Each structure stands twice: as C-alpha cells, then as structure tokens.
C-alpha cells in the first residue's frame, strides 16, 4: 500500500474498560500511522447516565491525545455503520474489546462482535482483552425514576381502560376474539408511546385480565392455556417490536435533530465570521456562538501574533482571566493542545481550555466554563467544540492575513507617496537651483562679453530664483510640520488686511505684469490668526494665481465679512481647475493637468488646507463664471463674536477694536502693481 500503513479503527464504548482498549491500541501504532477511535452511538446511549457520558468523553479524549482521530457515529445498525466507516477510510483492521454483554443485548442495538466478524469481509477484526476483572464492569442497577414508574402506571391504566371498554361495549354484542383485538390495540398504543417495559407489562396484564375477566370467571383456566400462551406471545412480540422500532425512530430523530443543530450552529457561525473583519470581532462572535452552542460560558483570548510569546496573549477584558489561569493559557499556547477539566493536563481546573490552532501555530485560547461546577462536557459537546474552535481559528487566521495584506498595501502606498514627494521636492528645489547656477555661471564665465542690461537680467534671475527657493523650502518645512503634527498656530487678533499688505510687498517682483486689485468689504473685524502661517497661505495662493494666469491679466484679492468670520478670496483669470478636480486640488501632489508650467510639487494648497484647519477655518476653490479660478478661505471668529441673539455686544466691541487697530494705517495695501 505505497508504504503507508493502512489505518485501523478502534471501537470505543462508554466504559472504563474502553480506556484500556484505547491504550492497547495506541501501543500498536507505528509512527505516522492513522487510526480512528470510533464510538457508535446507539439508542441505548440516550439512557446513559452522567458518569457514563464522562467516561466516554474521557476515553475519546485519551484516544485523541494518543494520536487518534475521534469520531462519533450515530447508528441504528452499529455493525454496519462501523464497517462502512472502516471501509470508507480504507482501514484494514477493527479493534474491539471482548464482549461483556449477554448475547441478546445485540438484538437491542448493541455492537455484536459475532455479527461484526461475520459481516467484515476483508477487514480483520481483532478482539483485545482488556485485562480487567469482570466484576468491576457490572453497572450498578439504576433505580427507575418517577417518570419511568408513571409510564408503567399509565400502561396499567390503559389496560384497565381497555377492559372496561370490552366489558361494556364488546362482550355483550360481539364475539370474544374482538376483545383480544382491543387489548392488542392497547398494547400497541403503550408500545408506541411508553416504551418497551410498559408494553411488556401491558401484554402481561392484558392476557391476565382477558383470562380472568372474559374467559375464566367460571374457573376453566386450563382449557384456555394454549390460546393464552399464543395471545400472550403475539401481544408481547408486537409490543416489543413496536417499542424497539419506536425507540430506534426516536433515536434517529434525536440524532438528526442534534446533527441539524450542530450544522446550523456551524453554518450560522461561519456566515457571521464571513462578514467580520477584525480578529476582535471574530473573537466576540465566537464567544457568543460557542457559548450558545454548548450551553456554557465561552471566552476567547487571542495571541498577538502566531508563535508569539505567551505573555503577549491579548486580554480584551482583563478582569475575565485570573492569574492562576495564565499558566494554563501559556501551556495551551505552547503545546497547542487542550487542557483543563476532563483532559489529562491541568485537570484540576474548573474550565476547559482549547487552543485555536491554525496553520501557523496557536492563535489563541478558548475557555469553556460550564454553568454548574462539577458538570462535565459530553462527548458530543467535545466534538462540537472541536469543530467550532477550528472554524474560529480559521476565521481569525483569515482576518490576520487580511490585516497583513492591508498593512502591506498601506506600506506600499506610503512608500509610493514618499517616492513621489521626494521626486517632486527634488524637482522643485533643483529647478531654481539650476537657474541660479546657470545664471551665475553665465555671469562668471561670460561676464565681460555681456551688456549691462543682460548682466542685470542675470542678477535679477538669481535673486528671483533664490526667493523662490526660499518659499519652496518654507513650504517643505510647513509640510513636514503639518505631517508630524508639530505645527502650532500662534493666533493673535489682527486684521487680515495687514497680512495681505505684507504678502503683496513680498511678492512684488513676481507680480510684475499682473495688475492686482484689492477689494475690502465694510466692517472687517480683526480675527485670531497666526501671521506667519496665513502669510504662507496667501503667498501660495497668489503664487499659484501668477503661475497659472497669462501675463497682463488681473489678480483680485477680496476680503469680506461673513456669518462665521472673515473670508479672503484670491481670484485669477487663469484656466481654472476642472470641476471634477476642485476637491482633489487640496490633496497632495495635485497639479492642474494640461497647463504648461508645472513648477511646484502640488503641496501649496495642501499646506493651505492644513494651516486653515489649524485656524478652524476652511478653504475651497471654485471656477469663476467669467473665467479663472477663485480660491476662498475663512478665518472664523470665535462663536461668541458671531452674529447671534446675544452676540451683539461683543460684536460691537470687536468692531471697535478693529477700527482702533486699523486707524494708524488706513491704507496698508500700498504695493506696486
């Protein structure tokens, strides 16, 4: 078989002996061999008590720790199901324990070794002795509980009802055999609804009352013994058959319902996970879903990164994990194995700890704490938990990958931005530098050959480019400060017009050939502003206007009072900005497309926006209806100074203040144009 040993199957029951069987089976395993520990769940399982459930869970857990894959197979035909499973997995051997049940037990649905051997065809059946003394096995007789007793009483009641009916309605009018039919009906009803024991009781009682009431009131019992025996036998077998069939049916229904519940829990959980993106959300959803599914309190604790140190386990709600649990959590993460109650590690704990294991190690720990201390998880719950944790782990792993991909994308984006900033900046700095170097080298090398006019032009070019370089460096510094959040606006109350005056005189060389018109609205109050920063905003706006407008066209600066503060507008007669791009113009590296002069990295408006944000104002651009671009920005007044019901007094004060400040220099806007 290709060198890979064929897997084998061990049948595990809910008994102490099964643990021995598992141990002996594990001893036969060679390295790398697959083996399955299978529990065949039959109708009798529904009658298991708590200890038996715990035993089964422990046995399967033991098998899992020893390397087996554990499976619970609900089955009506245990032998057939086990063989089907073995064939499906290509197993060549089935290991079973020595049978301890009486032979007739197999009729009732228990696994029969004889039948197994007879139907196994090519599969070897190995019967292992467990070495345990026989006496230990006898399960203590379970006391019939009250509900069971009630069923027997009901059976008896039904029989008496039949008798009454027979006496009143059948016997006087119909032949005797109809009486038997009514009793049979009673037995069938009992068998259907009350189970095997009550149906047997009903059969016995029916025959007895039939004999006593309808046949031998006169004492001729001997004659009817044979008929009795036949009637009794038929009734008993019908009762047993029906009750067994009903039992099987209800077991199947039960199993199907449980499977369906498990599937729908799984389905709902994976569907919810699919909509969640962060590990935390998935962890929270998993807690809720798993908690509901197993009826216990479930808590997830995530490890920061796979294979990370355990102490990095992320505590979303620190209070929910005790320090004593830390050791268990560490152990689970390190070994990627479950621990806690019902397992062989840290079995003293009151909860169960399952690793959320994925391809790259343990992603976290799931703690499941049952509602009542001392309760044990059933094997079905273990099974369900196993499935749900693996689904959770997969979802968390997926979220981690998505995170990682997103981070990588952001890194690439940042890198791209850095590169384009770098190239833009180097272009911006190198162009004026090139002009300076070129012009000054012309002066140095060819100075004596140049006429005085040309020499002057060269010197002027050097001056202009030096100033441009200075502005660009200022912008770069602003950009850096805006970028790392270290830019602070030192606001002082002052009139905007003053800043405009300074800017226009600063740019007067650049403004040659551009007539500048300034329009000041009435009642302009001073506003809180950082002189240096607002100056930079105006310089950038005016420089843009110069850069993009044809020489000779006017540039208009307007200032007016607005509801919120003071609005400044710089308007030109350039080509404007495509309407679709008006918003984007304030993002980094934006340049007006299809305009020949590309000087500038596209930082100017971004810086303006940043500076106005520091002033709690806004900046926006719009194309003028008659051609050109108008950029407006607002320098807001504090709320108490704005127009409003109670703002009148302060407004007047502010107006007075503005007059006072404006008076000494009523015409600050003297500039060459």
């Amino acid at each position, binding site marked *: 078989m290709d060198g890979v040993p064929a897997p084998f199957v061990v049948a595990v029951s809910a008994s102490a002996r099964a643990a021995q069987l598992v141990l002996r089976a594990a001893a036969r395993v060679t390295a790398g061999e697959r083996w399955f520990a299978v529990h065949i769940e039959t109708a009798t399982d529904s009658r298991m008590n708590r200890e038996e459930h715990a035993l089964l869970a422990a046995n399967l857990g033991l098998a899992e720790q020893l390397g087996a894959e554990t499976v619970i197979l609900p089955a009506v035909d245990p032998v057939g199901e086990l063989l089907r499973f073995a064939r499906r997995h290509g197993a060549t051997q089935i290991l079973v324990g020595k049978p301890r049940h009486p032979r007739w037990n197999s009729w009732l649905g228990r696994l029969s070794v004889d039948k197994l051997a007879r139907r196994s065809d090519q599969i070897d059946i190995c019967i292992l002795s467990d070495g345990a003394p026989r006496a230990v096995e006898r399960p203590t007789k379970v006391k019939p509980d009250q509900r069971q007793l009630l069923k027997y009483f009901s059976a008896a009641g039904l029989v008496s009802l039949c008798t009454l009916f027979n006496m009143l309605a059948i016997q006087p009018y119909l032949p005797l055999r109809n009486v038997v039919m009514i009793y049979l009906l009673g037995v069938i009803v009992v068998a259907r609804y009350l189970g095997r024991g009550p149906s047997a009781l009903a059969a016995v009682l029916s025959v007895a009352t039939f004999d006593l009431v309808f046949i031998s009131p006169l004492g001729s019992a001997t004659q009817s013994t044979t008929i009795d025996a036949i009637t009794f036998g038929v009734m008993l077998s019908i009762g047993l058959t029906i009750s067994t069939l009903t039992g099987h049916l209800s077991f199947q229904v039960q199993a199907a319902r449980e499977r369906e519940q498990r599937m729908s829990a799984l389905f709902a959980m994976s569907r919810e996970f699919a909509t969640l993106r962060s590990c935390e959300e998935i962890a929270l959803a998993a807690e809720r879903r798993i908690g509901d599914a197993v009826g216990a309190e479930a808590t997830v604790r995530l490890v920061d990164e796979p294979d990370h140190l355990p102490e990095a386990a992320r505590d979303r709600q620190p209070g929910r994990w005790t320090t004593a649990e830390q050791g268990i959590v560490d152990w689970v993460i390190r070994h990627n194995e479950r621990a806690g109650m019902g397992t062989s590690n840290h079995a003293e704990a009151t909860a169960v700890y399952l690793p959320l294991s994925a391809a790259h190690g343990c992603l976290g720990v799931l703690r499941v704490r049952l509602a009542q201390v001392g309760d044990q998880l059933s094997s079905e719950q273990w099974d369900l938990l196993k499935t749900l944790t693996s689904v959770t782990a997969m979802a968390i792993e997926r979220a981690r990958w998505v995170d990682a991909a997103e981070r990588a994308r952001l890194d690439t984006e940042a890198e791209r931005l850095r590169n384009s900033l770098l*190239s833009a900046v*180097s*272009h911006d700095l*190198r*162009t*004026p*530098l*090139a*002009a*300076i*170097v*070129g*012009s000054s*080298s*012309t002066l140095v*090398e*060819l100075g004596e*050959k*140049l006429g005085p006019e*040309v020499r002057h*032009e*060269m010197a002027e*070019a050097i001056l*202009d*480019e030096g100033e*441009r370089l200075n502005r660009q460096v200022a912008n770069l510094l602003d950009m850096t400060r805006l970028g790392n959040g270290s830019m602070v606006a030192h606001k002082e109350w002052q009139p905007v017009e003053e800043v405009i005056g300074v800017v226009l005189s600063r740019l007067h060389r650049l403004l040659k050939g551009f007539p500048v018109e300034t329009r000041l609205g009435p009642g302009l109050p001073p506003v809180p502003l950082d002189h240096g920063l607002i100056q930079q905003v105006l310089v950038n706006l005016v420089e843009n206007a110069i850069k993009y407008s044809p020489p000779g066209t006017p540039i208009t600066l307007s200032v007016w009072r607005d509801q919120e503060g003071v609005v400044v507008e710089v308007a030109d007669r350039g080509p404007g900005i495509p309407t679709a791009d008006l918003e984007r113009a304030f993002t980094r590296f934006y340049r007006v497309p*299809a*305009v*020949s*002069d*590309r*000087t500038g990295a596209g930082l100017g408006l971004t810086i303006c926006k940043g500076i106005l944000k520091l002033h709690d104002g806004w900046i926006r651009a719009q194309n003028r209806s008659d051609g050109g671009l108008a950029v407006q920005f607002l320098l807001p007044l504090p709320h108490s100074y704005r127009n409003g019901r109670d703002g009148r007094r302060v407004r007047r004060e502010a107006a007075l203040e503005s007059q006072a400040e404006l008076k000494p220099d009523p015409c600050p806007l003297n500039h060459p144009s």
Partner: protein
Amino acid sequence: MSSEPSVLIIEDEPQIRRFLRVSLECQGYHLIEAQSVREGTLQATQAHPDIVILDLGLPDLDGMEFLTRLREWSQMPVIVLSARGREEDKVVALDAGANDYLTKPFGVNELLARLRVLLRGEARSAADSPIYEVGELRVDLSSRQVIVRGEQLHLTPTQYRLLTTMIKHAGKVLTHRQLLKEVWGPHSVREHQYLRVYVGQIRQKIESDPTRPRYLLTESGVGYRFAAE
C-alpha cells in the same frame, strides 16, 4: 538662412529658458524656444535647428517621446537635460539616440562645450580627416598608428577598435551599451566587464596616470567619454 547655428530649446521651466536664452544668444547662437513636446516637434520640423536641447520632464509628454519620434526622421544632435539625476534615465535617453546629456544644475561652460563638440562633430564627419590629435596623443586612422608622447603604441585589434570608436565620437559620451555594440557586436551588449578590462588596458598604455585619466574619461554609471580638447 543665417550662418549662426540655431538651437532649439524644449524646456517648460521659464527660469531655465531665460538663462539659456541670455547665455546662448550672447555666444552667437540663434535661439528657438518651445515649452512642450508638441510645440518642440512643430519647431523641429519647421525651423530645422542645428541642435536640440531637450528637457526630459515636460508637461504634455515625456521628453523621451520626442526623442524617439525625432530619431525616426532626423539625426540632428540632441542634448538631454535631466533634473532627475538618475543614471538610468540618462542611459535610456542616450541609448534611444540622444547625443549627450547634462544634469541640472549645470554651468554655462559645460553646456557651451557640449554644443561645440556636437556642432563640430557634424562638421568633421563631412571633412573626414584620418588624423586625430588631442594633447600628446596622435592617432592616424589610415596607417593604424597610435602615438603617445612621441612613442608608438602596440594595441591589440580589440583595443584599437575600442580606441578608434571612442575617438570617432570624441567629446561625446558613449554608453556602455553603445560601445559594446560597436566594438564587440550586438550580442555582447550586457558584458560590461569586457569593457572595463579593455578600458583599463588602454588607459595603462595611453594615460600617464591611469588613475587620473586625461583622455579616456569615465561618466559614472553611464559610460565613457573621450576628451575632445
């Protein structure tokens, strides 16, 4: 047609155009200005300049685009201006047919020297003198003689072919690729180490101090240039 050489400048930065205009006009060049590839193409076809100064970063199209289009119909010399300072760009431009390059910022002397070399190269290919002389180096292409400081040198055929290839383009930068293609053939264009070895050997023979070459100059990252003057 005027006798003064005409120069077409394709450059979008007005401040660079301004200084080029002033410095070139006072040196007796006739200047034609263009701000974009479209305008430049128009001027090149209409005005037939003697030489083109091309900025690689233009607003409408990449300067490379102009170069490849120009080379489809004209061999007029092109000097590429690049502000990027990235060797790859220059190499790509040179391999695409540019005759020389300047990295911004550059001095006016550098530019004038390049212009002179390219314009003279045009003239010389017409005259086709078999003797090349620069400094103490004299190469007679007809008799295959190389004389340095009065002594005749013995060069292997490959060394001789490399030297004469560079002399043919003296004053002009040649990329590794161009040299390899011309001397070793089109299949060897990636074998940069051949070139390094042979350049080293030629330097040993013609340079008085091979570590500070006088004739065979290295253009780092781009190629080699043979001193023209």
